[in-house]
């Protein structure tokens, strides 16, 4: 009963459909601005994750799980962390210390630092978003059982 | 004093460990397995004997196996004192090996492979103790000996055996960890070394109180001497098969105890230090108490092996008393008694085992007329008993003679009285057995025909009995070695 009601709730669906793109855009903005302004991977990732959670809330768990397959979040979990660590190791190969971004092959070391941090923030953002989604789905699904 | 660096003591220790491996591998083939034991015993004895001439020349053999930690070496040293114990243990192992085979096969015991393996390790432990160059090495082998004899004691795996073995372990491991180890800690801390040095290492390094404490800890910690009140493990360990009781609880384990104590007294404390503090006399009195009480206890036992066990408790204290007198004759007595008592007591235990296997008798009261059924065995028993009571021509006489001399030298009349009383008690609990065996009639329903144990058992016990007589007639070797020891620890004697 409750499930069907949720599916039929057109206002919620529409509201979600309208707001989710903006939320996600905002999330990307927050992630991308981590290196200079307030923001960063954690915060952006949480917002990104929240947008998916909102989607699940509006469209129901079934639809949500169909769209966000578990293996996808699992892979994203790992990919985010690997992106972070990978950039660190990349710096090693380029002759710097671990996470020493200014050795990245870009003309200006300052720009290189910026790029490095953005890369890392993206990695963090992906992982955090994926984790938020996983957490939500796992806890919510168990309740349904 | 010349020092020879040679690995032969190490080989002597290791040869039985090698045998352990071979015995374990050939567990399926009893004949091969037993021959490994005998081969190892022979090699071991010949290595020990090969070192004897050098020692008699006044040389000393040393070998450092490895340095475990700074200040703690596992090092071996062969000096005249160690020869007493090493010769006894390695020679008697050969004999016991034969006896074991007879006993274990006749008794159809289980777990024989484990038995022979542990036996061989025990011999390594014994020789290690004999050859140890410092307290740490000695402690290592002391513990090895304790641990590897545990499976031998618990061999039958009956609840009774487990109980006896538990008590055995509790006493030996407990005293050695609680007291001996703390004594070693204190010695190392105050003396800065654990090296055995003639004349002692502790003199002048600590206050008298501390030295007294260390001495008391050592006496209590060397539980294998079975000095009262730490003697209860010895009767408890009699649940073991008789060869174990014979070799380990007449020779290897208990002699390791008194040997350790002698070594500690002479090489850690030194004669002068103990004399100055009067600790030797105190120990002698404790030993005298043990002798008398143990003899009375022995008198009350009907089980033959238990009577022998209590007799061992008493006899060990003779040795302790002898060395505690700190006089030349006393120390001589202690040294030669290590070997003499071993020969006598192992004979007695062998006979007890032979009687059990041949006639299934374990009680003293059942032995009436058994001399007719088992003449060889009972002849050996008589020799052993005479040695214990110290009647010539058994070798026990020599050691007791020197003990009395030592007591006179030390002007300890009370101790002389104790020795006399205890000798009478010894006679009181041994001679009735001999009398009953030969002169009392055989109980009804038993024949008088010869009914000896297997030859593999009788031959060893006759051999050790003869050995006891031989030691009385030709004790030269013992005295030569004893002189060398005295020269090093008392100087100028």
């Amino acid at each position: 009963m409750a499930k069907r009601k949720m599916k039929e709730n057109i206002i919620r669906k529409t509201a979600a459909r309208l707001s989710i793109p903006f939320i996600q855009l905002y999330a990307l903005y927050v992630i991308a601005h981590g290196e200079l302004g307030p923001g960063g991977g954690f915060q952006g990732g949480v917002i990104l994750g929240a947008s998916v959670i909102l989607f699940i809330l509006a469209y129901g768990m079934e639809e949500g799980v169909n769209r966000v397959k578990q293996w996808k979040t699992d892979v994203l979990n790992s990919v985010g962390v690997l992106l972070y660590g990978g950039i660190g190791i990349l710096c090693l190969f380029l002759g710097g210390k671990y996470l020493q971004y200014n050795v990245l092959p870009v003309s200006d070391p300052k720009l290189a630092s910026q790029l490095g941090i953005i890369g890392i923030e993206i990695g963090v953002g992906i992982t955090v978003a994926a984790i938020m989604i996983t957490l939500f789905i796992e806890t919510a699904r168990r309740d349904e059982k | 004093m010349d020092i020879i660096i040679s690995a032969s003591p190490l080989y002597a220790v290791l040869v039985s460990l090698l045998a352990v491996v071979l015995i374990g591998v050939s567990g399926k083939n009893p004949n091969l397995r037993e021959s490994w034991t005998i081969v190892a015993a022979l090699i071991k004895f010949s290595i020990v004997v090969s070192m004897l001439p050098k020692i008699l020349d006044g040389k000393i053999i040393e070998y450092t196996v490895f340095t475990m930690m700074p200040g703690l070496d596992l090092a071996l040293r062969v000096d005249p004192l160690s020869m007493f114990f090493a010769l006894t243990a390695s020679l008697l192992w050969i004999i016991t090996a034969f006896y074991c085979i007879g006993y274990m096969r006749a008794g159809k015991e289980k777990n024989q492979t484990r038995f022979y393996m542990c036996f061989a390790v025990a011999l390594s432990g014994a020789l290690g103790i004999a050859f140890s160059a410092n307290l740490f090495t000695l402690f290592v082998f002391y513990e090895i000996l304790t641990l590897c004899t545990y499976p031998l004691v618990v061999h039958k795996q009956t609840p009774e055996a487990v109980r006896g073995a538990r008590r055995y372990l509790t006493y030996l491991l407990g005293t050695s960890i609680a007291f001996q180890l703390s004594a070693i800690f204190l010695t190392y801390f105050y003396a800065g070394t654990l090296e055995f040095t003639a004349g002692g290492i502790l003199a002048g390094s600590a206050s008298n109180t501390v030295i007294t404490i260390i001495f008391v800890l050592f006496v209590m910690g060397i539980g294998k001497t079975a000095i009262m009140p730490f003697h209860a493990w010895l009767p408890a360990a009699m649940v073991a098969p008789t060869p174990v009781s014979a070799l380990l609880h007449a020779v290897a384990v208990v002699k390791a105890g008194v040997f350790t104590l002698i070594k500690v007294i002479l090489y850690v404390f030194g004669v002068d230090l103990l004399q100055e503090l009067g600790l030797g006399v105190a120990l002698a009195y404790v030993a005298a108490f043990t002798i008398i009480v143990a003899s009375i206890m022995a008198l009350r036992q009907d089980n033959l092996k238990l009577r022998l066990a209590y007799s061992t408790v008493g006899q060990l204290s003779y040795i302790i008393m002898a060395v505690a007198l700190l006089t030349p004759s006393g120390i001589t007595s202690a040294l030669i008694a290590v070997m003499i008592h071993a020969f006598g007591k192992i004979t007695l235990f062998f006979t007890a085992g032979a009687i059990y296997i041949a006639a299934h008798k374990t009680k003293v009261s059942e032995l009436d007329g058994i001399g007719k059924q088992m003449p060889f065995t009972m002849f050996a028993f008589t020799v052993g008993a005479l040695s214990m009571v110290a009647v010539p021509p058994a070798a026990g006489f020599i050691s007791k003679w020197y003990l009395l001399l030592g007591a006179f030298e030390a002007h300890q009349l009370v101790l002389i009285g104790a020795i006399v009383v205890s000798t009478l008690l010894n006679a009181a609990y041994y001679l009735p057995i001999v009398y009953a065996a030969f002169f009392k009639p055989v109980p009804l329903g038993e024949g008088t025909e010869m009914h000896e144990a297997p030859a593999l058992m009788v031959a060893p016990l006759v051999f050790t009995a003869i050995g006891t007589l031989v030691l009385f007639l030709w004790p030269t070797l013992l005295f030569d070695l004893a002189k060398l020891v005295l020269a090093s620890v008392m100087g100028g004697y």
Partner: protein
Amino acid sequence: MIEFILGKYNYWICIALMMVGFYGMIAKENLIKKIIGMNIFQTAVFLFYISMSKVHGGTAPIEWHHAVVYDNPLPHVLILTAIVVGVSTTAVALALVIQIYQKYGTIEENRILELNRIEEEKNLEMNG
């Protein structure tokens, strides 16, 4: 004295919150309440860090053209990490509670311990 109390009111609040959380963690039987206590406890410490980083008259540590005095940004960064840790801990704790509820049918600690005890006694009986 009054100055001592009022001047450091932020720390007093932190301590009060901490004790509230601590009490919840220790004394509550309900596992969810324990988790709530844990969160209060952790948050109190976060608050402590943040209030510590406040510089008198300072603004948020963002590059801002007419600001001269900034708050100390380092504790903020540290606490960001600590918050993530706190969230993870809560997540693990909740997951555990869900599992516990499935296996025991209750989330009251004393009841669970009682069930454990009963089981242990049963095992002992089986072993003789």
